[in-house]
């Protein structure tokens, strides 16, 4: 179960306002809108360049996305650190393997949870690359009033809702 015993969570509207202001500040200071999924490609490219340089040179995608350490790679590292600091400060940190909804609707097998999380991650990333962004990138795209941002977001939710209804509506276990 959740161990949010020491503190009340931040109101989501307040969190959203502060995040909006943070994005504006980031654009002003460094010209960077939020986005996260490209960082995985940048890191994978670095790995491939290091271990299989000949193979790396043939991959056309690395002409589109430059492999290496960038603003976005540091940004996701920061998210990890910021999440850790907040969890520690407010007493929310603990090692947990299975989320409550999963436990109630799917079961208590850690192996099953890890495998399906991995598969879901892989599918979602292929989708995020095709759609040119995950929710954080599409949030930026929507802030720019891009049609692609809103349409992507709507599709994320429609297909997410359909699969979630099928996958988690198997009753309480």
């Amino acid at each position, binding site marked *: 179960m959740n161990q949010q015993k020491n503190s009340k969570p*931040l109101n*989501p509207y*307040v*969190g959203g*306002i502060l995040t*909006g*202001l*943070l*994005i*504006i500040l980031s*654009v002003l200071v*460094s010209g960077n809108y*939020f986005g*996260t*999924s490209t960082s*995985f*490609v940048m*890191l994978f490219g670095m790995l491939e360049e290091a271990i299989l340089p000949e193979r790396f040179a043939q991959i*056309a995608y690395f002409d589109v996305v430059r492999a290496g350490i*960038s603003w976005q790679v*540091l*940004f*996701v*590292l*920061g*998210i990890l*650190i*910021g*999440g*850790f*600091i*907040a*969890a520690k400060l407010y007493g929310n940190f603990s090692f947990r393997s299975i*989320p409550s*909804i*999963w436990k109630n609707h799917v079961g208590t097998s850690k192996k099953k949870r890890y495998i399906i*999380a*991995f598969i*879901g*991650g*892989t*599918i979602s*990333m*292929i*989708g*995020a690359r095709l*759609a040119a962004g*995950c929710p954080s990138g599409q*949030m930026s795209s929507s802030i720019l*009033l*891009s*049609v*692609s941002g809103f*349409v992507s977001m*709507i599709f*994320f939710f429609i*297909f*997410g*809702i359909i*699969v979630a209804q099928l996958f988690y509506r198997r009753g309480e276990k």
Partner: protein
Amino acid sequence: MDILLYGLIAGILFGFLLQRAQVNQFDKQVGALLLKDFTIVKFMFTAILVGMTGIYLLSDLGIINVAGRSFILGGTLVGGALFGIGWALIGYCPGTGWAAIGEGRIDAIFGLLGVFFGGFIYSEIYPFMRDTVLTWGDLGNPTLPELFGVNHWVVIGILIVAVVGMFRMLEKYDL
């Protein structure tokens, strides 16, 4: 070097907010997809409303330039569908998942390893996608104001009214 430092600082603040508002949690993300808990929707759309107002204000003041992003029907629709399907199973996003690892979620580590693996797969299949899905319906870089032929503040005004109306409904039904 500075640019990397700005990225790190922005990430730390964003990660802090994600964790404090619980939007990094599987139960909040899947809770939204099960239409039971709209915390992530409130967080995300409030950020969009504040962000769009500020960014277009800065643009009108001539401080920054804004432009729409690429809209290719094939990529957006196929990619959007695949992301949604995978998202329901992983229950984390490529960004918020890092803040989930930060609060000790072991399953998020496996999820993000899958995301990393997805990056590898995509780098391999990219030439195929570039020549097929990503050629279907390239509509340029349209924005909503361009699409409807109106001033951007009209669109921003309508979105604010619509989204705040949606928030009031969510609060009314305690979602």
